[in-house]
C-alpha cells in the first residue's frame, strides 16, 4: 500500500517535472530558431558606368543582399552571374589570365556561361541579365 502511494507520488512528480521541463524548453528552442527575415525584393541594380570596367575584367556588385559578379568580356559583351560558389558559398572572382570565373576557396572554376569547368562545384552559377542603357550598366534577374 505504502509502495503504491510512493509510486503514485513518483509518477505525479515525474510527470509534473517533465511537463514543466518541456514547457520551459519549448519556448527556448523556438526562440533560438532565427525567424526568416524578408529581403527587400530587388529586381534590378545599377552596376556603374560602362567606362568603369575595362574589357576582360570583372567586379562584384551588390544585388539586394547577394553578391553578383559582372564581367565585361569584350567591348560589347557583358555577363553577370551569382557570385556565390555553388560548392560552399565562397564568393568567386574573375581570372583575367584564364578568362574564367574562379573560386579561391577550393579552386573551383566556371566558364563564361557560368558552367562548371573543374573543381568541386556541383552546379552552374545562376545567370543574370545585363543591359547597357546609355553609359550605365544595369543588372537584372532573368525573366
Amino acid at each position, binding site marked *: 500500500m505504502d509502495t503504491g502511494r510512493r509510486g503514485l507520488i513518483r509518477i505525479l512528480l515525474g510527470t509534473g517535472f517533465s511537463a514543466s521541463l518541456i514547457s520551459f524548453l519549448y*519556448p527556448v528552442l523556438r*526562440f533560438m530558431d532565427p525567424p526568416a527575415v524578408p529581403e527587400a525584393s530587388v529586381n534590378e541594380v545599377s552596376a556603374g558606368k560602362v567606362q568603369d570596367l575595362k574589357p576582360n575584367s570583372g567586379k562584384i556588385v551588390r544585388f539586394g543582399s547577394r553578391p553578383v559578379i559582372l564581367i565585361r568580356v569584350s567591348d560589347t559583351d557583358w555577363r553577370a552571374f551569382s557570385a556565390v560558389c555553388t560548392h560552399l558559398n565562397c564568393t568567386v572572382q574573375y581570372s583575367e589570365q584564364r578568362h574564367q570565373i574562379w573560386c579561391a576557396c577550393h579552386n573551383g572554376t566556371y566558364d563564361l556561361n557560368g558552367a562548371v569547368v573543374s573543381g568541386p562545384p556541383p552546379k552552374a552559377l545562376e545567370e543574370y541579365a545585363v543591359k547597357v542603357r546609355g553609359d550605365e550598366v544595369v543588372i537584372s534577374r532573368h525573366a
Partner: protein
Amino acid sequence: MATTTITSRQRVAGWLDERLGLSSLKEFLSHKTVPIHSATMWYYFGGITLFLFTIQVLTGILLLLYYRPTASEAYESVQFIMTRVRFGWLIRSIHSWSANLMIFTAFVHMFSVVFLRAYRRPRELTWFSGIALLGLALGFGFSGYLLPWNTISYFATKVGTDMASAVPVVGSTIARFLRGGEDVGGATLTRFFGFHVAVLPGIATTLIFVHLMLVQKHGISSPPWVEQKTGGKVPQMKFFPNFFLREMMAWYAALGVLGSLAAIFPWELGEKADPFASAPAGIHPEWYFLAPFYTLKLIPSQVLFVEGELLGLFGFAVLALWWVLLPFWATNPKGEERARLVTGAGVALLAYLVTFSLLGYFR
C-alpha cells in the same frame, strides 16, 4: 529485472563517485542542517534570489543571440526580439521581471538578515559579501536599463551618470569613465553592455561563490530569542532532502509568479531614444532608485555653502557606509547586543525606502 536496473544504476553511480567523489558530498550534505522556528520561511529568500539570478543569466544569454549593442541598432534589435522572434516578447519580459523580482527578494533577504540578527559574529563577512552583491544587483539594473536604448532609459542614464559627476575631485573622471565620453551616447551603450554582460557577471559569480562558502562555513544562524528559548538546542531539519525540497517548491512558486507577471504584464519597450529630444514629463527611474531620486528632488539647490546635490550624495554615502558597518555598531564595547537600535534602524530604513519610493512614483 528490477535487480538488474538497480545494479546498473549503482554501477553508474559508483563510476561517477570514483571520479567525482560524490559520496563525500553526500556525506557532507547529510550533516548540514537548517534551524526550525517560526521565522524559518525567511531563509528561503536568499535561495530565491540566487534562483532569479540564474534565470537572469539564462535569459540574458538567449537575448544575446539577437541583441546588437550600438546606438543605431539596439532599439531595433530589441523590437525585432519582441515582434519577430518566436517567444521573444516572453524571454525579454522574463528577463526584465526577474531582474526586478531579484532586487526585491535581495532586499527582503537583507532585511530578514537584520531582523533575525543573522549578521552577528562570526558572520560579518557574509553580511559584507551580501551587501556587495546587492550593490552589484543595482549595478546590473542600472547598466541593463540603458540597453534597449529607449527614451526613459536614455534620460535615466543621463541623470544617473551626471550624479556621479557631482562627487568632488574625481566626479568628472568617474562620469567620463561611465559614459565613455563627455555625454551619454553610443559609446555609453557599448560600455554599459560590456559592464552588464561581462564585468558585473564575473564579479557577481565570484562573490556569490564567496557568499555561499561563508554560509556553508558558519551554518545558518538562529535568532537569539530562539536560541534562548531552546537553551541553545534549536530544532533542526536536514538540509538534504528536507530543506532542499522545500526550497525547490519555493523556486517553483517564484517561477510561477515570474511567469505570470511576464505573460500578463509584458515589459514595454517605449520610444526610441532621441538625444536631441526633450525629456518627457513624469520621467522617473526604476523603483529601486526612486527613494534617492525623490530625496534629491527635495533637497534645495544650495544648502548654506554646499551644493544640494553634493550634500544629498554625501548623505547617501554616509548612510550606506553606516549600514554596511552594521555588524560593528550592533554590539556595544562590552559585547552586548544593541538589539533595539538595530531593529529601530532597520524599521526606519525600511520606512524611508517604502515612503520615499511611493512619493517618488506618485508625485
